């Protein structure tokens, strides 16, 4: 599972339109996320944050536009992409009749994860002892979320898509979550967090994009991407359609070492009306 070379974005969407029946969940999204970046996705209810994550996970096909995840097309390389991406959604994907531990074990093994990491993950999220042997139907919402997080941390995929991760968690669990996200971020995992509570997640994120009406309507930087160790491993698979950016050179995380915020990024010259480059692509 070679990681994507730092010059290719982890996630790249261009003009993505996704439908649910007749309703457009996404109405033309342009977004690029570099490897190792942590991006906060904000926006009002119904704006399309969840849909954005689901699209990136490959659950919802695009009606038009392009999407590449880790350089691969999620439709054509379904299994490969899904094994390397982890989605934490509102639902926890737990089977009512199985115990917590059995659920986690199934979740990890189904995704091709390492079974040896199951116990440490359970311990990390406090799912041990009697709780581990409880049927999932008896769990509270917070406990279900913890179980889903245990599966995620046991699998440790390259891309994490977290949909309202803090919802339903108590204070202790939130601290654990922040810790896990920080650890993942430092390890070079690409993370997208959709959240209503920017407070907690803002500390963790490099960037924040706002989604409204099914499109990305704002994009701002929070803190510079920390340098990702580029060990020069080649990517596998095809080069992605989304070549790093139209026009502006968006520094890949690997090159970001030590650069202060704003360098190489077109800074706010809003008044001048200069066409911004790089971060947010435009209408083609």
């Amino acid at each position, binding site marked *: 599972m070679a990681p994507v070379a730092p010059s290719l974005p982890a996630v790249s969407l261009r003009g993505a339109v996704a439908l649910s029946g007749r309703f457009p969940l996404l109405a*033309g999204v342009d977004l690029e996320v570099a490897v190792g970046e942590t991006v906060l996705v904000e926006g009002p209810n119904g704006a399309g944050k969840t849909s954005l994550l689901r699209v990136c996970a490959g659950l919802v096909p695009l009606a038009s536009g392009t999407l590449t995840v880790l350089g691969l097309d999620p439709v054509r390389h379904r299994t490969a992409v899904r094994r390397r991406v982890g989605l934490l959604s509102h639902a926890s994907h737990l089977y009512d009749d199985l115990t917590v531990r059995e659920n986690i074990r199934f979740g990890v093994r189904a995704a091709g994860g390492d079974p040896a990491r199951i116990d440490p993950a359970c311990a990390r999220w406090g799912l041990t002892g009697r709780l581990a042997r409880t049927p999932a139907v008896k769990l509270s919402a917070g406990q279900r979320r913890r179980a889903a997080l245990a599966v995620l941390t046991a699998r440790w995929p390259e891309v994490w898509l977290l949909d309202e991760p803090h919802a339903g968690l108590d204070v202790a669990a939130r601290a654990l979550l922040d810790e896990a996200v920080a650890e993942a971020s430092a390890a070079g995992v690409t993370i997208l967090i959709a959240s209503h509570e920017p407070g907690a997640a803002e500390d963790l994120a490099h960037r924040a994009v706002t989604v409204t009406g099914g499109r990305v309507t704002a994009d701002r930087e929070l803190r510079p991407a920390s340098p990702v160790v580029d060990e020069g491993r080649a990517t596998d698979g095809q080069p992605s359609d989304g070549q790093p950016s139209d026009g502006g050179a968006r520094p890949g995380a690997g090159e970001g070492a030590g650069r202060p915020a704003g360098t190489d990024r077109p800074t706010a010259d809003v*008044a001048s009306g200069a*066409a911004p480059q790089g971060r947010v692509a435009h209408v083609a």
Partner: protein
Amino acid sequence: MSTPSTAVPVHPAAPSATNTGMTPPPAQSARSRTTERVIGLLALVGTVCTVWLGLWVTPPDRTQGDLVRLVYVHPGVAWVALYLAFGLAAVSSILYLWPRTRSLFWDRLAAASVEVGVVFNICTLVSGSIWGKPTWGVWWAWDARLTLTAVLLVLFLGYLALRRIPAEPEVRARRSAFVALFAVLDVPLVHFSVNWWNTLHQGATVLNPGLTLKIHGSMAWTLLLGFVALTLVFVWMLLVRYRIGVLEDWLDANELDAAVAERQAEGATPAGGAGAGDPLGSGRDPGDGAPSERVGVA
């Protein structure tokens, strides 16, 4: 074919007030309208002739009397329902599933074919029943052909039930195509099963009416005409139903375009599109040093 995205208004000014949203309905080309009319006319003429010949000109059978006139109807509708409609639906569904030829055209064709096929299927069963009562004494006999027709009817109805469930055209098309494919695979198996099943009960195998008749002379010509006429009726109904399907899809696509426009309007800055220099909309905090905001116009 009718991917809605091609009609999504991209220019920021477009989604707002003045757009009433509706693109004009796909006009039926003059050629297809002519074809439809011609076939309809031929079908009508053929049917009238068949009826006239069948009811008045041809002689009654020695054993069955006037009842034999059903032979001009029953095998004809059966041929259309069992082979033509079903076969067309099967082929269209497979062509839809095959990536190289995937196109909603095949899906609409399959759906139209199945719908018209159901009508002919019911006609087959009814005409068979009417024929059977005086001939065999029963309204229904479990002979192989009738049974197969009945099973086919149920398969068709299942397909139609599935299509009624609201979904995007592509999702609905795929689901229906899978069901059609499974049904196609099943039909030969059912055919063999029912044939073998029936031959074990010799008593009930009172023959397919068509086989016992010796058909010659004017009856043969009328029979042939009947087949042709019914085929033309099928084709005409298929064309009309297909056209209705196109219009239905156009209506759906328009609703979709309107929905996309509304969705975009949800987030777009009011009155003025391009947004460069417009710090409205996202309302993000100014406390972030140089406001490097951009309004992404997608």
